[in-house]
């Protein structure tokens, strides 16, 4: 996995910046620059999400690739933001704590690193509210 590609995206990951289609009212995170509903008729503008939502589903990852192996076991989840879109994220909580429907909020965290002494990259995780 190449870090430079992810650096470019980091402002959006830091601030939970997505997009909004003013034509149909849908919100997108991860951001999209083409609305799948309105396609070319859509008017896309940037939107910063409030960062609150709830857990839709989850797992506890026990075997991971190198970048994440130091973090295992960690909780992986799909979170639905209050504005509607869903995203995949790590949860900052113990495996025993997580339930479906649990309210969560965005927090800024280290996401992973390229090996033990490699580059660290940051982004958004979610924590129980």
């Amino acid at each position, binding site marked *: *996995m190449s870090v430079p*590609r*992810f650096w470019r*995206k980091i402002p959006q*990951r830091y601030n939970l910046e997505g997009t909004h289609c003013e034509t149909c009212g849908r919100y997108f995170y*991860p951001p999209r620059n083409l609305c799948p509903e309105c396609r070319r008729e859509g008017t896309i503008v940037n939107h910063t999400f409030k960062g609150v939502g709830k857990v*839709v*589903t*989850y*797992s*506890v*990852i*026990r*075997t*991971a*690739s*190198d*970048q*994440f*192996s130091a*973090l295992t076991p*960690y909780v*992986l*989840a*799909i979170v639905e933001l209050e504005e509607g879109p*869903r*995203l*995949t*994220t*790590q949860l900052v909580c113990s*495996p025993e704590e997580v339930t*479906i429907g649990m309210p969560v909020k965005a927090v800024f965290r280290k*996401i*992973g690193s390229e090996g033990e002494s490699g580059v660290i990259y940051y*982004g958004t*995780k979610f924590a129980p509210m």
Partner: protein
Amino acid sequence: MRDVAVIGIGCTKFGEWWDRSFRNLFVEAGVKAIEDANLAGEQIDAMYVGNMSAGRFIEQEHIGALIADYAGLASEHIPATRVEAACASGGLAFREAVISVASGMSDIVVAAGVEKMTDVDTSLSTDALAGAADREWEGFTGATFPGLYAMIATDYIHRYGLTREQLAQVAVKNHYNGARNPIAQFQKEITLDTVTNSTLVADPLRLFDCSPITDGAAAVVVAPLEVAKKFTDTPIKVLATAQASDTIALHDRRDISTLDASVAAGNRAFQMAGLERKDIDFVEVHDCFTIAEICAIEDLGFCKKGEAGKFTEEGATALGGQIPVNTSGGLKSCGHPVGATGIKQVCETVLQLRGEAGKRQVDGAEIGMTHNVGGTGATVAAHIFGRA
């Protein structure tokens, strides 16, 4: 469009082949398929090769030409094309071969699939397979491939009350079938306890809920139905070829535990074949994880949503049941060399329809189906076959 038939099949044994190379494996499968079809190499008009990630697993790209070359066909200069759609690469390679013959553009076409996955360590293969999902928005967060299917399982269990035993029964059944398949990686029966006591990989999925890391290759030869009898007494007709796509990321799906691409591909296949679910005698579905088979038999319409656990527990999907599922042993017991899987499913279906499946033969099998999934359901290929 012309009718198309499968006239030859070939498959290596699936497993961990540390003493064999990528090209060695696909040449074995290809030669078997060509011999099975009673062909000479120079009669081949084109090749389609399913391969997911040779660039990551063996650091080799340009697979189409490599395969044509080592198949001894460089001097024939045939078109040889690599097809990639993660774990559905093989299914799509087969579909491209069928389309090529149906269109009249080619007559004799080889569809192959190959993957050499054990040359790298588990961490790298985990990372390579995670590329079947959305690297920027799933992989970046630490989502592994088993982790994504585990989130499907969590959602399914929560909504439909699937039990741990019902889920494990999928693996038990597929190992039972695989124990009767000479090409399977694991030719060994297992018990419910084997599954439920195995190591957790991504809760609730355990090691025995997951298909393994595998090396292997498979190849088939397709031809116009009108000439198929010149090559074989038992051509198998392709009654339908269908393909569908969906969002790359699981989190963007309409419903986490319904693969809408499976539903769409299934519906298109049944419509093209002019058949109903009850007409299908057996099906090879994409069981990369036990939960995937549960979803597949519902999404293809063999039982109602939420009932696949009970359906499996009652033996409806076992050999001799209402609709035998994964008579080959599936990805679970055969192994899952990702690019080869979709072609192996076709090989198994052809064996069953020829009545050559030995101890796992479905009595009187006349119509069979295959279902091959890429990623967590972003691509699905579905095919229906019948005796010609």
